[in-house]
């Protein structure tokens, strides 16, 4: 990307524009799978903007909608398991079930309010890269009021089933910081402080999600 710096002016010439227009039907280099992944992210972001950014929708309803989107398009169990790391094996069956439920809750209630800010901003897909047969990275940019747009990477997992291809988001990387890795450090630190017990993490998660569900009681940042 960066070594092409000097080629950038070329991108603005009429010849280039013509060439792009001619080749637009089939972007060079991108395989069918990568295009599908890009389309998947594009339609997901439109869905999210349509259903989550309306100011008049009550927060409860937005939470419900986001929960549906999250469960449908994110590999919630895989992410939750990765985030727990080696502690997953230590957890009992009941603990795993409650942890996954609370993990979903935490993601939904902490991310739902972030979409309010993105009203009107369209996610721009910059490029795609197939990491292996089952993972595609979609590189995207989100514009901001001031300064450079935010770099967002989506790791999309592709699952081939008899009925076709199912795509799920495995990780979101914002400006170089992976959501799942940050959560893994966060949760891991709590478990260490609680003498290595998953039940300690579950207690903290209960408190946190309860506070986030009632933003009136908890501290909320005004934007």
């Amino acid at each position, binding site marked *: 990307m960066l070594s092409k710096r000097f080629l950038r002016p070329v991108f603005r010439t009429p010849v280039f524009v013509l060439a792009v227009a001619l080749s637009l039907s089939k972007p060079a280099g991108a395989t069918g799978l990568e295009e599908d992944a890009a389309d998947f992210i594009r339609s997901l972001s439109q869905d999210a903007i349509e259903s989550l950014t309306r100011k008049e929708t009550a927060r409860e309803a937005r939470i419900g909608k986001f929960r549906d989107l999250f469960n449908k398009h994110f590999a919630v169990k*895989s992410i939750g398991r990765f985030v727990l790391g080696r502690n997953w094996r230590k957890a009992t069956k009941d603990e795993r079930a409650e942890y996954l439920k609370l993990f979903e809750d935490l993601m939904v209630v902490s991310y739902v309010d972030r979409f309010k800010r993105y009203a009107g901003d369209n996610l721009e897909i910059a490029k795609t890269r197939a990491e292996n047969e089952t993972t595609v*990275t979609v590189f995207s940019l989100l514009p901001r009021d001031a*300064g450079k747009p935010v770099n967002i990477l989506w790791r999309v997992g592709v699952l081939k089933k008899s009925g076709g291809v199912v795509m799920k988001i495995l990780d979101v990387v914002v400006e170089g910081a992976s959501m799942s890795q940050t959560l893994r450090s966060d949760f891991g*630190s709590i478990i260490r402080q609680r003498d290595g017990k998953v039940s300690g993490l579950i207690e903290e*998660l209960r408190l946190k999600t309860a506070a986030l569900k009632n933003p009136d009681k908890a501290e909320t940042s005004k934007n």
Partner: protein
Amino acid sequence: MRKIFRLFPRFRVGLFVPAAALVIALFSGAGCAVVPPASDPEAFAEFREVNDPAEPLNRAIFEFNRGLDTAFLKPVAKAYRDILPPFVQDRFKHALANLRSPIIFINDLLQGELDRAIATLVRFMINSTWGLLGLNDLATDMGMEGHDEDFGQTLAVWGAGEGPYLMLPLFGPSNPRDTIGLVVDYLINPFNLWAANTDRDFAVFARTGTRAVDMRATHMEALDDLEKSSLDFYASIRSLYRQRRLGEVSNGDPSANSPAPGLSQAPRQ
């Protein structure tokens, strides 16, 4: 030594930061984290992965920094973000980025990235002249986007490891490598040398202060969100800092090999 002081008038001040870091390192003996026993290899591996032997002391400094942030930096950054029109904020951002160009150029060269060095130089020349002293980023409009570099990244490119996590007072998350980088950048920055040689110390403070406010404002929402949703804010920041530095060292080309959830990990149903 006197000659060095004359050549680099800021050297005296610059010596203070590594000296302070050394004192912290020495005192951190008192604030050491408990090392897990060798009988628990997984816990020991985790301890090494977390790589924060001075965690209790680092946490104390983190709380100190948060106190300062709440009292001073955050309110100023909030006012900067909410009161100044985005157009004016962009002028600040461009001017600050332009003032960093010389140090980016030097580090590009030290890293052997000749085409990036030339790009930085051309950007600096365009933006400082036609861009009206850097207030406008014409180079980006012409298709030459900027990038950032620092001596910590140069050391990483040269093969230096990051070392244990370190929370610096005022300066925030760091490690020994990036602390040295911070000091070296400060000492060799032509802007600082110019300011020191012409008795314009206020210029250095003004620039550093403005940069801190601008950066704080840029990351305001992300930090607020993280603080709100994380169970252990300190651990989240530590992870975030390492990941971002890794991304910066690799010049934003993320590796596909970094650990991430995979669909194959899905629990059987």
